[in-house]
């Protein structure tokens, strides 16, 4: 039997749909506007004539960027940082999380505290900066002059992610581990053949967290990477924004498209790849917020 909606329920439904629609449009609009503005002619952009649809369509802003080698260079640097950074951080975190998940580990509480304390207290920007500078010297003295490796190795580890992995490994039934040991598996085989396959979804989530923080990393990359050719995309975008909104620069601009269009085109180009892979990672994206380190 279908119940008739009560008047209070009906009102609430109407309010819900209205506010949700408004909010969803607010979320969507800046992107649509960015796409339109990046494809519109100079006059339309500068005089605020674009509301939703592009006017005097041009693709010069995009082609300017696609023909810009530094743009592609920045993109490949970001890919480098994301891929190697995720592999390195995930490898360290899996090994650490596995060891910490074992009840027989001596000083387990102390090791846990060692990690958790870094979530409570951080030394701050200046001490970290001095530390990274010292690390850079050490790296240079052993012959690693590419600052990207400094960013990959020294930055981006997060205690929370290790704890997520630890909790997942703790959830693997000990009978399966014992069975593997009885079958003669070594410690590394137990990890690679039993624990990693059985915690795939958490590992994927943690890998995604690492990858996102690498992809988005800006501040330390800008501080520590001195060679302009090594800058990742985020730094590239920011530098372009600073350059293109400088009144002196815009005054000397004489192209048929606006400086704004170039910035909007950059924004679009940096979001599109994420939108393309989103459907494949959606599962883990949504899982992340639920996977918080809540324990007993």
């Amino acid at each position, binding site marked *: 039997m279908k119940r008739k909606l009560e008047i209070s329920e009906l009102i609430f439904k109407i309010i819900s749909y209205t506010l949700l629609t408004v909010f969803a449009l607010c979320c969507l609009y800046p992107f649509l506007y960015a796409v339109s503005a990046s494809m519109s002619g100079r006059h339309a952009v500068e005089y605020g004539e674009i509301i939703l649809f592009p006017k005097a369509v041009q693709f010069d802003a995009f082609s300017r960027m696609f023909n810009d080698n530094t743009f592609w260079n920045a993109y490949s640097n970001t890919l480098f940082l994301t891929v190697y950074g995720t592999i390195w951080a995930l490898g360290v975190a899996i090994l650490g999380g596995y060891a910490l998940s074992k009840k027989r580990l001596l000083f387990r509480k102390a090791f846990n505290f060692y990690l958790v304390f870094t979530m409570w207290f951080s030394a701050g920007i200046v*001490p970290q900066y001095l530390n990274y500078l010292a690390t850079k010297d050490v790296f240079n003295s052993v012959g690693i002059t590419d600052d990207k490796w400094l960013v990959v190795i020294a930055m981006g580890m997060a205690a929370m992610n290790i704890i997520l992995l630890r909790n997942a490994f703790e959830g693997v039934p000990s009978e399966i581990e014992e069975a593997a040991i009885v079958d003669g598996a070594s410690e590394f085989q137990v990890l690679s053949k039993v624990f990693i396959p059985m915690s795939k979804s958490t590992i994927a989530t943690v890998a995604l967290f690492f990858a996102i923080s690498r992809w988005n990393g800006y501040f330390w990359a800008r501080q520590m990477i001195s060679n302009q050719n090594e800058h990742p995309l985020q730094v590239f975008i920011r530098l372009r924004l600073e350059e293109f909104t400088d009144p002196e620069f815009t005054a000397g601009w004489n192209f048929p498209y606006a400086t704004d269009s170039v910035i909007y085109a950059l924004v679009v180009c940096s979001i599109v790849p994420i939108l393309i892979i989103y459907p494949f990672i959606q599962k883990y994206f949504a899982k992340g917020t639920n996977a918080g380190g809540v324990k007993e």
Partner: protein
Amino acid sequence: MKGQAGDFLILDKATGTYRESPEQLVRDDVEKHYWLHVGRTILKDWRLYVMLVPTILVFLFWRYLPMYELLGSFKVSDQVKSVADQYFAGFSYFKRLLVGGDTLSTEFWRAMRNTFLLSFYGLLFGFPMPILLALFFNEIRSNIARSVYQVLTYLPKFMSTVVMTSLVTMLVKQASATMGTQPGIVSQALASLGLISQDAARAGLLNNPNFFRAIYQISGIWETAGYDSIVFFAAIIAISPTSYEAAQIDGANKMAQMRYVVLPSILSTVVIMLITRIGSMLSIGYEKVLLLYNPNTYVTADVVSTFAQRYGLAGSQKGIASAAEMMNNIIGMLLVIGANTIARKASNVSLY
């Protein structure tokens, strides 16, 4: 419980004397040779401890060694000497920041106040939004329509801080009098709605300290509300439909259902998220402030981390900068520990 003689000694009935129990001998042995015992256990299981080594080293080098550099906030800044060799300055930096009476101290207190206010407003306005969104999502019966709404609201979360702030900067940018260009589209819209004056729109909202907090909070809600609603929505759809039916049969209208069915079911999630939020209150993202502020808006925008960045990295007063941030981070740590203790006491839920 106190130990009794019988725990350690065994009465030998035949001779009427006591002797040590064999278990106690083992215990004594372990105690005497504790580190030997530790060494043996580790050696037997060395693979496990080798696995822990990379984690320990990464955290030692890049999390704990910076803490050693904090010594610099008690010492006279010196570009040449390492922090160990610098001369002690005692608490002079802290004193100067707290009660210095000069512009530096005023700026520090302003930064402290801004840090607190930005996170407090974030809590006040930003925290309820995802819960409301989750309640609204729950009203949509069609799965397809709901997915569409959800994906649309997650969209801004796909941007990095740099891209998000670039977009915000462009949308509220100033008009140029010499070129005759118009302000950003959002400024135009707000001005034509009468929410802000034409002059303010033309001058650029990010150049006006009165708008910084609003821009910070609204862009924060825009960016995270949809994504943060996932966890609340999961709690809401976990409510059994029979609970609603029972409430309806008892004559509960929508408000009463909210009050007596939905609220109790999501309360624990809300409390956990709230505690996490309070715990991380003072550690607000400096990147976003750094990317949005400019000298015109320091009055309302400058937070302690950006203060430290300006004086320590862009300037050369490293001691002052790390002293300022250290105070902020210690208060932050106390907040986290306090929030976590309360959570454990109140609901047996511990976050770490």
